[in-house]
């Protein structure tokens, strides 16, 4: 799966949790998931679980802590898929 495909799927998974639709419309790899997209921090774990299901991967606690932007999520998923 290419990085672009991963990015698109990540955006799909994130969308239902996003409160700031304006930020979602101009989303990039630099977009901060909590600060920019206003995803509830308590719900972030649901995003991670949805990503695990979508990509068939397992994310450790420490790996989740390292994800702050959409690009971080894409990089983590790509590294696991490869």
């Amino acid at each position: 799966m290419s990085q672009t495909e991963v990015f698109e799927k990540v955006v799909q998974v994130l969308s239902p949790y996003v409160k700031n639709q304006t930020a979602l419309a101009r989303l990039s790899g630099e977009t901060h998931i909590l600060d920019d997209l206003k995803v509830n921090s308590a719900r972030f774990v649901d995003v991670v679980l949805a990503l695990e299901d979508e990509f068939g991967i397992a994310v450790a606690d420490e790996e989740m802590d390292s994800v702050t932007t959409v690009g971080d999520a894409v990089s983590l998923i790509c590294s696991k898929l490869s």
Partner: protein
Amino acid sequence: MAPLWVPVVAAMLRVVLGYRIDGRAALRHRYADLWRTRSGPLLICANHLTMIDSALIAWALGSPWWYVRHFAAVPWNVPERQHFAASVWARVLVYVMKCLPLTRGGSRATVAATLQRFTHVLAEGDAGLIFPEGGRGRSGRVDVDAAAYGVGRIVRSLPGCQVLCVYLRGERQATYGDMPHRGDRFRVHLELLHPTSSATGVRGDRDVALQIVRQLAAMEQQHFDDRQ
């Protein structure tokens, strides 16, 4: 010197604010028993309605003088930094009062660091108190959907951790607020839980957190059933 603030806080709750705890002696007896016979870290998980819930719960579970002799049993807690630790002086004061201020909604790295410190003090043998819903439930009821995964992470990182679920509610508490009504009478329910999960990583954390919050929701239901 640190334990000496406990009687002061207890006196404020009892004398100044006029609060009462139903069945206080039995609750304290049970907590003392649990403390004496514990075989691992002890984490207290409670519902959250007001800004002084942690003080009320500590007061319900132990007498000031018992806490002076068993200071490790006074639970550490993680209050919202904005409310309780806005200045350096406030931070020093809340630390002495066994609080580790947390910035809710802050970067996950800082939240994780605070929870790691919290986990450390539990591993060292002190009790801890956390609100698994993450904040005061705006509906006034336990919100299972609000379960934060952090509590699951703490429990899973502490082998043998026992979770004491505490449901506390004042007779005049209809919903959440800053302070309970002056002179309110509280009912407190306790249930000991050993949550586990066969899932790994984040999924396991979430699983454990949900078990705890569901237990609190069940205790809430029992609370209202008992009143009818």
